[in-house]
């Protein structure tokens, strides 16, 4: 019996721009599996197919297994092999395992530290298990990748802070109100950013949401989608005191929430803070409202600045994460080599052919 050979081959956002990734997006994983079903050199196989990467993790009898995958994939996508080889990612052995660790933990993501990739890797593994193409090596590599990802996300700042405007708004609200379950949220405007922010609040437990917009039908549509109520746009100032958080993102060219209206609302609810988030350009909320006691006013630049700081903080953690992940990948690699009865070669860096086994 020949030695197993762990590899990953594919294309990611690092080398493939969006227009290329669109051409590389795999429409049907099962068709490719069917193409590779008769290839004897491939023992185990898993596909990670997201908007930022298409990666094939496999265990073969030798290096030709990766070539067979590449050939089948390029043929199915009608993508020139020579062009693919210019942008491809191809790693073997310990380097392939380390790459999966970095992908699962969000270190390799375009939006560093993002959560979604972890679920996508789990889905890829589940699909491989369901298809019966995950064997003892891939099982162990994926399980260890999940453990490593959870470890670095817990023990480093790679996932700290949020990096999208909508989530920064929600985090900001949590800094003021703690649990959002009891906070009342009013979203002014029915555009894309207003809808996204309303959804972000709903997903974080805000139970009392209302949408107000000049386009009543659009307000009803957003409200129905997230189980929110609708407030007549004309009542926004007179009923302001009922709300704890106001997110405004209308296309109005003038102020739609005056400082006098905010002051009037605060007189009716002086002990409870009011968070005003103005995501509109030009701004919807009178900046003088920020001077009022217990009123916290943030605009689009403020939130973008916070998101940018969080992103920079996450990127600063990448080096620390890579050290942790490399140690874990080394441990996994040693285990796999021992299991296969192969001496561990620690002299050459990961990814070298000498590390191809098992």
């Amino acid at each position, binding site marked *: 019996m020949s030695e197993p050979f762990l590899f990953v081959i594919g294309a990611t956002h690092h080398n493939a721009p969006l227009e290329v990734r669109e051409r590389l997006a795999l429409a049907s994983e099962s068709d490719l599996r069917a193409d590779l079903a008769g290839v004897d050199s491939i023992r185990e196989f898993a596909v990670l197919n997201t908007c930022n990467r298409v990666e094939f993790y496999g265990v073969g009898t030798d290096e030709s297994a990766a070539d067979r995958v590449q050939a089948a994939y390029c043929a199915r996508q009608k993508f020139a092999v020579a062009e693919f080889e210019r942008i491809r990612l191809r790693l073997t052995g310990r380097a392939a395992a380390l790459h999966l660790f970095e992908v699962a933990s969000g270190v390799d993501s375009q939006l560093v530290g993002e959560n979604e990739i972890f679920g996508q890797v789990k889905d890829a593994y589940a699909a491989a298990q369901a298809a019966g193409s995950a064997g003892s090596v891939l099982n162990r590599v994926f399980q260890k990748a999940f453990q490593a990802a959870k470890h670095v996300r817990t023990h480093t*700042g790679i996932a*700290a802070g949020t990096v999208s405007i909508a989530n920064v708004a929600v985090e900001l609200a*949590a*800094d003021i*109100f703690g649990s959002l379950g009891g906070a009342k949220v009013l979203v002014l405007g029915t555009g894309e950013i207003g809808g996204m922010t309303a959804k972000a609040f709903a997903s974080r437990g805000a139970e009392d949401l209302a949408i107000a917009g000049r386009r009543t039908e659009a307000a009803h549509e957003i409200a129905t989608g997230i189980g929110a109520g609708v407030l007549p746009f004309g009542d926004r100032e007179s009923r302001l005191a009922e709300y704890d958080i106001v997110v405004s993102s209308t296309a109005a060219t003038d102020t739609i929430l005056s400082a006098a209206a905010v002051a009037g609302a605060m007189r009716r609810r*002086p*002990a409870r*803070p009011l968070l005003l988030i103005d995501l509109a350009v030009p701004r919807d909320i009178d900046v003088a409202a920020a001077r009022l006691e217990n009123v916290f006013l943030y605009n689009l630049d*403020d939130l973008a600045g*916070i998101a940018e700081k969080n992103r920079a903080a996450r990127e600063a953690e990448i080096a620390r994460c890579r050290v942790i992940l490399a140690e874990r990948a080394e441990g996994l690699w040693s285990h796999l080599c021992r299991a296969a009865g192969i001496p561990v070669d620690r002299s050459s860096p990961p990814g070298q052919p000498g590390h191809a086994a098992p």
Partner: protein
Amino acid sequence: MFADLTDRQWLWVAAAFYAAGLVLGTLALLRGQRPSGFAVSAAIVAGYLCQWIGLGVRGHATGGCPLGNRFEIVQFVAWSAITLYLLVGVTFRSGLFGYVTSGLGAALTLVSLSVPSWDAVLRTHIFGGNPWIELHAALAIFSYGVFGLLALTSALFLLRHFSLKSKHLGGRFSFLPSILDLDHIEFRLLAIGVAILTLALAFGSVYWSRDTASVGHAKLAATLAVWAVGALALFLRGIGRLLAKRFAWACLALFAGALLSLQAVDSSRHPGTTPMVATPRP
């Protein structure tokens, strides 16, 4: 080994544990991490037990609640603040709150241990065998401990308020509790402190009405002033006239005033006490 420790040695050990909580939290913050709630709480619990033993040994020697000199009073204020933290503070689930509480415990205990003159005179049986007077004194000083915890919460509120208004939300500011939670905690602590002080004054007034000359004017005025400021702040907060930042500053001022009033309290002793010059032990 432990049986040979003197009251002050127990209190030094307690101070060391509180300081350890402070150091652990500071190191975590310097590393950009949230102070560990478990580690800090463990240090606080260990310090609290040692302080309890130390004050118990001192109380046994003085024949009552150890409130006979400024050292004992400040130790008792620290013990009271930690007691309340252990009773209700841990439910806040904020490692940072435990961290600042250990800081308060360390500051009060270390300062009181480091000033020999505060413990130069050991007074015994200062309550003249009257348990109501002892209860009055213990409750009054306990309320000062509550005001100490209130001051910490107010300081955290002001930090959170600053971070929100100045839009500095990341880094160590992210470990702070929400501003609404801090506001609620402040309000409850002030209500608890004022209620306990009111009870203490009620017990004291019964005794004082029988013998008005037994309490010095300075002590009476200082204690009533602390109570009045606390009650007024609570009332104004209740009707929505003293809020947010101004309320937090008022709570800090209340604790500062309570600490300053200890001078008047300490200088007015029960006439039947037996002053005894004692050399402070290590």
